[in-house]
């Protein structure tokens, strides 16, 4: 049952081979066994999950079930879910029970999916190892001394360890793709604006995008069908016709032009990762694709640009956490300014504070033009690189991350080393493009390697097709870690 695809689960539920309550309980039991070690979930609420499962069973019995009705889905703790503790991995929100549902959550609720629990994450999604969570590091199920990646590390770990059927993540600079790669699962960051950001706690508003994480491209297509859609409460949500992201899954790949950016295969890339990615490209050639050499010349600038823009937006987005209306307030303070200072210095972790300070600095009078404005200009150049590239290819491929999962604590003291692990993913967010990661083998220490597939705007259906065809021809995505 734990190896079933979402489609198989849905069929089994509709055929009454298993009830949603039974399925949910199976997962809850498995979570109870393995989560203490993996720390993938920060909040479980079996009562609420099972209540949803009972409702789903009624719907299944009534014959009005949809594709995901009755299926347990884990939610990254960045999504506000009514009645659920929603912490965003921070002490600041240790006591925040959301009174409302994020758009993504209500989309799942409307589809009859079960909220199985809230998954751990880097604090306010700031991190690439899930070590910045106030609720402790998450372990990579392939090697529990290693990180799962971040910031959607709890989700990646839970999916890889079969502690949920599927889950959600968010991706600001690689937070879906990098942990997907490090945990050997599939993850998709859609085009900016495809999934509403309403109710998703903001890190960097112009980059944040929710997306599905699961065990196969086929599963991701079903999840995205539920998650995507216009929402008038998010001004950056795109008003487009509803599409079926699974529609092209079975198209053959003959004639597909794959762009390989030379900058993604240069210095800094681990040889084990390079080998696995090259093998995947070879597999694609067998499937009928052709390869085109392309260049994304401004790739190297994406990290500095990102670390100006994302902290700038974050410094402002996180101002609402002031201890006044909800969340953490310091127990002792002398006056208003002291209350702010104490609450925020005690409530936020080191990485969050670092980024708030960077962001505050780059927006300050006298520095704004040199940093923020300059970064925005380069952001446009980076986006332009992709426009140029897509004149010559249909999708772009390369490694998701320069290395496989590193050891817990290995990069903790060196933020710049940590930031470099997002070198291949960040440009995609800056350009607002869709990107995904699928497993394509194993590197050193038998840790999974991810293949990144970057599509043109709104090309999610094609990317899923490209990923699915590879997954029909290979079995990397069905490998499971021994727990």
């Amino acid at each position, binding site marked *: 049952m734990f190896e079933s695809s979402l489609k198989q689960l849905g069929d089994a539920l509709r055929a009454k081979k298993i009830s949603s309550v039974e399925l949910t309980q199976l997962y809850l039991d498995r979570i109870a066994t393995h989560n203490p070690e993996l720390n993938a979930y920060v909040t479980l609420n079996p009562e609420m999950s099972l209540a949803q499962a009972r409702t789903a069973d009624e719907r299944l019995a009534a014959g009005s079930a949809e594709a995901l009705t009755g299926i347990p889905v884990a939610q990254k703790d960045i999504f506000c879910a009514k009645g659920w503790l929603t912490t965003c991995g921070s002490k600041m929100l240790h006591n925040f029970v959301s009174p409302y549902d994020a758009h993504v959550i209500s989309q799942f609720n409307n589809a009859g999916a079960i909220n199985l629990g809230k998954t751990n994450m880097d604090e306010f999604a700031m991190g690439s190892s899930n070590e910045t969570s106030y609720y402790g590091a998450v372990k990579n199920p392939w090697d529990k001394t290693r990180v799962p990646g971040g910031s959607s590390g709890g989700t990646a770990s839970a999916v890889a360890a079969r502690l949920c059927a599927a889950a959600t993540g968010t991706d600001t600079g690689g937070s879906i793709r990098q942990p997907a790669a490090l945990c050997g699962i599939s993850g998709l960051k859609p085009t900016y604006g495809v999934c509403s*950001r*309403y109710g998703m706690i903001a890190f960097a508003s*112009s980059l944040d995008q929710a997306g599905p994480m699961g065990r196969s491209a086929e599963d991701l297509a079903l999840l995205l069908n539920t998650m995507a859609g216009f929402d*008038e409460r998010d*001004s950056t949500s795109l008003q487009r016709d509803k599409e079926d992201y699974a529609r092209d899954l079975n198209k053959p790949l003959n004639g597909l032009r794959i762009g390989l950016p030379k900058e993604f295969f240069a210095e800094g890339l681990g040889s084990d990762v390079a080998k696995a990615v090259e093998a995947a490209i070879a597999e694609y050639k067998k499937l009928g694709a052709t390869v085109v050499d392309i260049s994304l010349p401004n790739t190297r600038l994406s990290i500095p640009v990102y670390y100006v823009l994302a902290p700038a937006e974050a410094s*402002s987005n996180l101002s609402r956490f002031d201890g*006044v*209306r909800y969340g953490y307030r310091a127990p002792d303070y002398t006056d208003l300014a002291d209350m702010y200072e104490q609450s925020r210095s005690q409530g936020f972790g080191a990485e969050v504070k670092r980024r708030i300070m960077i962001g505050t600095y780059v927006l300050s009078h006298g520095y704004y033009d040199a940093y*923020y404005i300059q970064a925005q200009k380069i952001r446009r150049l980076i986006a332009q690189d992709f426009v140029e590239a897509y004149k010559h290819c249909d999708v772009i491929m390369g490694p998701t991350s320069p290395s496989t999962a590193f050891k817990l604590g290995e990069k903790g003291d060196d933020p710049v080393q940590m930031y470099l692990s997002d070198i291949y993913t960040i440009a995609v967010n800056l350009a607002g493009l869709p990107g995904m990661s699928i497993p394509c083998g194993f590197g050193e220490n038998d840790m999974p390697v991810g293949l990144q597939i970057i599509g043109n705007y709104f090309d999610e259906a094609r990317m899923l097709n490209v990923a699915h065809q590879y997954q029909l021809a290979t079995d990397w995505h069905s490998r499971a870690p021994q727990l």
Partner: protein
Amino acid sequence: MQWEIVIGLEVHAQLSTNSKIFCGASTAFGAEPNTQADAVSLALPGVLPVLNKGAVERAIKFGLATGAHIAPRSVFARKNYFYPDLPKGYQISQFDLPVVGQGALTILVEPLSGNAKPYEKTVRITRAHLEEDAGKSLHADFHGMTGIDLNRAGTPLLEIVSEPDMRSAAEAVAYAKALHTLVRWIGICDGNMQEGSFRCDVNVSVRKPGGELGTRREIKNLNSFKFMQQAIDYEVQWQIDTIENGGKVQQATILFDPDSGETRMMRSKEDAHDYRYFPDPDLLPLDIGSDWIDAVRATLPELPHDKQARYVNDLGLSAYDASVLTSSREMADFFEAALGDATAQAKICANWIIGEVSAQLNRDGLDMAQCPITAQQLGGMLTRIADGTISNSGAKEVFRTMWAEGGDADAIIEAKGLKQVSDSGAIETLVDEIIAANADKVAEYRSGKDKLFGFFVGLAMKASKGKANPAQLNDILKQKLAG
């Protein structure tokens, strides 16, 4: 030494939308604290702003009414600072790209003292931009703590910034009043100053005539024209005294205390915030096409200044009368409805409204909208004055009755027997009788004692029981006495 006063105003006009500028919560005044604070007003984690079109429409209206350029693209920016009644930790405002560009307002200035004549002046408006209001901090009743009411948080404001074009308190007050009239006139703001719907910040400096601009101090949040004048008078004198005593005016934000009549320092320039403005990534740039502008233009009423010109040029009214009649849209509407097509009666109609009607309203503490007599009723009475049915004294009687008891002029004239005798035959008979009965006086008159004319008028009026048409009576009497 002579000093020139330099004044510029920043006015916050609360726009009369039913819901807030970035969410659907109500803007109604006076509700129980925090009952109009929804998730967005509370700045819960994950919520997003969505622009209220009605607020934009009102801004466009204002721009058109002041002959300003409406920006085809303007941008919302975040103004970052911490305060407990600012729930997001930033205010959404507009910074370098406001929706309304440079415009102007022509005002009629009535000097406050002496016999100087009213004069016209054009004040340039630098810009007007949309922003959200903050909530309120309540310090009373909380025993050393502060209560926060977020009902007002997110109320739409139009901040209207003038050039430093005013040269006296009288000019500043005239400008503020004209603006106050205009925003109500075009229906974008209820103008209620007690409720804070129209708040003025006044920048004051002094300089030697023709010299460089002096250092300004900003008097915050004046909510009455009387206080504005007092505050400016006090501040100007304070600045002059400071400079003449060898001191220097330091840039500062100050408050006016109506009880003491003095201004006092709120914060100095050194305490000024670095607001770290940057474009709000949650909101798209505001694009306003010419279609939208044209549609708004079609809803604009004739503006006060255009009306004044028409009253002077077409109706022959004085500039003063025209200005008083256009001091509110209600008054102008009343005037025009009372006048109807009888444009020849414009002066007498204006006199009645500026005189009797305004005086009565004043006495009864009513405003124009609450006037107990309708414009049509007043118009009916004016018609009867014009066609000689009633005399002026009869009209006063009609007006008093109308005010107290209602009813149309004709009915009152009938009921009270106020119709004057305009039948020349009847008057001639009456005059003949008087001449016959007073032969001695007639002889005296005819021998040159002109003063006796009044004696005959008195007798004739008495004989007609006051109803003889005075002009007609005069003519006939003169003719008959002449022999």
